[in-house]
């Protein structure tokens, strides 16, 4: 989905609040939420693709205004409701107020019907696809051409794995894009490497 989470290349953001001794957590509840996610994954209640997609489905204004751990908590709570661990009403009651959750999910999809294997040096294009469910293709590479640098081990296909759809594991390719191809006359010169699932790619003749 073209969600608010897909931030790469968005403009208008200011300076990074960087400090050499930057903290990971800022409040005790953040660490507890981080642990609840780990527990839910360990217990097989949720997988990481479902979790990422549940965060992506947050209402955009909520997403932008929430801290990292509030987003994490909202995604996890949404999945707990969807999977029947708890009801929305019970969460509201336990919280003593409204507990906002993420929006509904669109259907997922299996691997591409005709996948091609690629080798280092191959020129590839990211398919011009608009996927309603979960997808791990940042929008800034959609339709863009790059060069395969390497191939990874197989991973669960996120577009399926986030939705309980049966699919084959598939490799990702480290694809090197030039920033000037991604944002012509609108980027600092750099190579941008993205791990792209095989289903998202087509060969450039």
């Amino acid at each position, binding site marked *: 989905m073209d969600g608010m989470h897909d931030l790469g290349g968005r403009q208008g953001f200011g300076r990074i609040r960087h400090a050499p001794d930057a903290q990971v957590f800022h409040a005790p509840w953040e660490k507890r939420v981080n642990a609840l996610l780990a527990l839910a994954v360990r217990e097989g209640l949720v997988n990481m693709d479902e979790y990422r997609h549940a965060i992506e489905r947050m209402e955009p204004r909520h997403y932008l205004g929430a801290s990292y751990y509030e987003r994490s908590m909202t995604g996890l*709570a949404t999945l707990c409701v969807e999977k029947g661990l708890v009801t929305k009403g019970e969460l509201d009651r336990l919280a003593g107020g409204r507990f906002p959750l993420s929006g509904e999910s669109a259907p997922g999809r299996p691997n591409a019907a005709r996948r091609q294997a690629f080798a280092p040096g191959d020129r590839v294009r990211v398919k011009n696809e608009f996927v309603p469910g979960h997808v791990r293709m940042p929008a800034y590479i959609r339709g863009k051409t790059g060069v395969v640098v390497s191939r990874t081990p197989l991973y669960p296909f996120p577009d399926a794995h986030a939705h309980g759809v049966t699919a084959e594991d598939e490799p990702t390719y480290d694809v090197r894009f030039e920033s000037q191809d991604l944002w012509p006359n609108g980027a600092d010169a750099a190579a941008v490497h993205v791990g792209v699932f095989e289903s998202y790619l087509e060969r450039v003749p």
Partner: protein
Amino acid sequence: MANRHDEQAPVEQRAAALEAAFEARGMKAADFIDEHTRRVDEEWLPRNGARVVAKAWTDPVFRQRLVANGRDTVAELGLTMPVHHRHLVVLENTEAVHNVIVCTQCSCTAYSIIGLPPDWYKDLEYRARVVRESRTVLKEMGLDLPADTEIRVWDTSADTRYMVLPQQPPRTRGWSEERLAEIVTKDSMIGVARL
């Protein structure tokens, strides 16, 4: 009850509610939280990655193995990664090439190796900007790279994880591995600082 039901509950109360829901299902959340907190505070620290970097600086054969297969090679030092992190790619900085990592869509990192991501790494600003304005962002963060240094930005868009292998500062030639590990920072393994 402090809040009317149509008002959004404060974030701390929502977190406590979720934890209570886990407990109500017999999932023993409080015990797990203690165990997890110990891992966060004592195990998932940048000193792990610092050991890897220091060894790579002093042992060229280890370095070769590390670049060829990060996950198996860090395991030689007793360092493990979560099951879903199936692949660790180690990116070597040189005079000519500078690597920097990001996750534009969420905030993925090799946290068991380089430590959990700092707050700014998870902020919208870093995620939005570093892929497009890498040189500008690095300069703002205090890293002013020579104009002829090639910048490579790595967007963690799959469950492959990355860590940057910083360049060894010349002044540290001949130091022991232990002493070298002390100078390696989380920022340098993300690639927003050189040492």
